[in-house]
């Protein structure tokens, strides 16, 4: 049974991002449209097809993943960090909410926003490139796992960060580069061997790859590897965030 406390935190977090829909829902959509215009149409006319799929459609799963990753991360990271900054974190810390409830409340609301963005992006993308979903249920499960993973990472970052600079450290220096180099815009088969090895060391590559498999029905690597890596990342990030909340690290003096 879901208690009043957890429900309140979840609803509050959802209402927070719904109060600023321009930033939290619309802005990622505009970015998607721009990617489509820039990459889809300009590059697409040269690249034509990958694995028998038009290039403009090939990039959809990667873009949706990118949207889910960044919105999940940003939602928890900015919400918790702003609470720390404004002192409203105290309201939560003195409440009888358990660590698990705090984690669940933040992560589930962030995952909801990330999935909403992902689905909207997919719809907009489909309008450009045509709709294709090879394994719809699996695609949804995978996106939920990605959303939960990065929401938990965002929470950990916000707990750790003392400054906005630090909040932005992970998205800027780790997540964005790994995502862009993780095969969002190209197939690993197009890469020279040296770059391929580099790509194969990037966990995000496997996430994009398995999500592409769930949507378009083909992948560069084995989907099972992608699913395993994703499951491990998800469990590890949840465990890490839980441990941080439990220890009181940087939250309780």
């Amino acid at each position: 049974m879901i208690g009043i406390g957890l429900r309140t935190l979840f609803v509050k977090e959802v209402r927070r991002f719904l109060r600023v829909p321009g930033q939290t829902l619309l802005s990622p959509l505009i970015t998607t449209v721009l990617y489509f215009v820039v990459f889809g149409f300009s590059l697409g006319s040269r690249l034509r097809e990958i694995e028998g799929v038009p290039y403009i459609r090939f990039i959809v799963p990667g873009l949706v993943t990118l949207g889910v990753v960044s919105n999940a991360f940003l939602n928890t990271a900015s919400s918790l960090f702003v609470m720390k900054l404004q002192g409203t974190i105290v309201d939560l810390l003195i409440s009888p909410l358990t660590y698990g409830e705090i984690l669940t409340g933040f992560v589930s609301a962030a995952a909801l926003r990330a999935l909403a963005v992902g689905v909207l992006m997919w719809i907009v993308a489909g309008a450009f490139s045509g709709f294709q979903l090879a394994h719809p249920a699996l695609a949804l499960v995978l996106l939920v796992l990605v959303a939960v993973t990065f929401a938990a990472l965002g929470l950990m970052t916000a707990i750790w960060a003392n400054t906005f600079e630090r909040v932005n450290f992970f998205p800027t220096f780790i997540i964005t580069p790994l995502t862009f180099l993780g095969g969002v815009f190209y197939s690993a088969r197009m890469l020279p061997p040296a770059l391929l090895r580099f790509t194969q060391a990037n966990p995000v590559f496997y996430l994009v790859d398995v999500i592409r498999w769930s949507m378009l029905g083909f992948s560069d690597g084995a989907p099972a590897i992608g699913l395993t890596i994703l499951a491990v990342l998800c469990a590890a990030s949840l465990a890490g965030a839980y441990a941080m909340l439990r220890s009181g690290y940087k939250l309780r003096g």
Partner: protein
Amino acid sequence: MVSIRALSKRYGDLVALEHVDLDIRPGEIFALLGPNGAGKTTLISVVAGLVRATAGTVQVLGRDVVADYRFTRSVIGLVPQEINFDPFFTVTEMLRIQAGYFGVELTDDRLEEILTALDLTAKRDTGTRALSGGMKRRLLIGKALVHAPKVLFLDEPTAGVDVELRQALWRYVRVLRDRGTTIVLTTHYLEEAEELADRVGIIDHGRMLLIEEKEQLMRSYAGKTLRATLAAPLPSLPPALTELGARLEEGGRVLALTAAPGTSLGPVLAALAAAGLAVEDVETHRMTLEDVFVNLLRSERRGPGQAAGAEGR
């Protein structure tokens, strides 16, 4: 109600609390007094679960605040010193959210009661960002009350609050106490402790210097001073007055006397009359908690031995 045993808190080399023992009794108003940085906020933060103790234990209603945090936090209300607000929400929404965190659905009646008590009814649908400083502080108090706590901690509740609001808050604190809420407030306004408290604890450098009934404290420590302005300066005092402890000040114009706690000034006035001295003006001053506090801190800083002696009185 709250039982604190051998509580210590260190931040590296800094000792914030040193072996503090304190029992808060049900239904009392307890004032924790001390200068800035004395450890007041740290002490209540440990009880509320915001700070983890280095050593010692804290129990609320017999349950440990670490092992049984869900229970203890559900019966504690905390009004933090720092004003906080979430610009995304209105007054009513904030109160409902805070109640929800505590697992309580705020009924409309209870909401009205809190809004009315804290004079926030007109601002119920106002965004918290648009509230004045005093209103934000009242909202903080409202948030601390949504779950009807058994113990309410007020950390410097009237810092930066105007006189009128301060009076209103004091009245409300008494109302809460009369309804059975135990209240612990920290303050460095001694007037506040003197006005409200049943018992007073004085803390400095993380150590509890003294815990005493306010009345008892005032009786034990707070003497009276008398200053009589004489019509004509005197070269020296008659022996009858010197024996009572009087002295001359301001070039013989003023007769001054500090009476020990519990002594009457009657004999002094009688001796003045008997000596036939013409008095222009008489001024008496009962020492306030502030004087007591300053004297105590002064003697404590001279040497801990004296304060330990004072505690035994």
